[in-house]
């Protein structure tokens, strides 16, 4: 029961999915959810994030929290690519219902070390049935 990232028993690689369903600033689930994802990335598990419902608003471009006096934690999404998180799924139906398109989302990238460090997009927009399939295949589901 140590707090070291290395506490994970070697070989026990599980599929973790962080499911984000809240708008970013009205409450703290979103910010504290990202904190879990960043810590979790150090545990050498297979990590993905899904953005569903109002969670898609977390990835909206142009968030400026200065006047509201809040921390703009969503800037840290740009770091996810460095944290070995290679998949961010955004549900197409949730986007459409809010009148958003891919262009409204932050252009998050990662460098693919298996492909000569080519820059590739982190975000993949997928339909509800494909996402339901993916959720079904996870070992650990954490909701924020």
């Amino acid at each position, binding site marked *: 029961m140590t707090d070291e990232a290395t506490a994970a028993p070697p070989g026990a690689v599980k599929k973790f999915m962080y*499911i984000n*369903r809240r708008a970013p600033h009205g409450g703290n689930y979103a910010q504290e959810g990202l904190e879990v994802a960043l810590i979790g990335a150090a545990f050498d598990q297979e990590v993905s994030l899904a953005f*569903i*419902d109002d969670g898609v608003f977390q990835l909206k471009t142009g968030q400026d929290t200065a006047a509201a006096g809040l921390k703009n934690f969503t800037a840290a999404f740009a770091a996810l690519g460095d944290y070995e998180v290679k998949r961010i799924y955004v*549900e197409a*139906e949730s986007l459409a219902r809010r009148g958003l398109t891919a262009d409204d989302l932050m252009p998050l990238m990662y460098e693919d070390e298996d492909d000569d460090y080519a820059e590739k997009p982190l975000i993949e927009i997928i339909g*509800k049935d494909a*996402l*339901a*399939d993916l*959720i*079904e295949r*996870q*070992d*650990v*589901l954490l*909701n924020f």
Partner: protein
Amino acid sequence: MLLHTVNKSPFEKNSLDTCLRLSAPGSCILLIEDGVYAALAGGAFAAQLQDGMRARKLYAIDADLQARGLDPAGLIDGVEVIDYRGFVELATRCDQVQSWF
């Protein structure tokens, strides 16, 4: 096969709607806390839930129904009422658990 839990009233929040949209056919859905209101036979979500149940199995916690004065006879057909032991048993029988708040 996953166990999905829903603890919010569908009249107030979108949790049940999202659960039905993103739970694969064959899943189990367990209504807990205010989630049990979804199963009211005369309620506005009865048809949507009944439709989702054609491919999914629906459960509700007895203690949460009782606390809210909901008689199992007043629920949509096919809801299985279980206690917390049944909840634990469901969680062990399913591969994982997804909680929709």
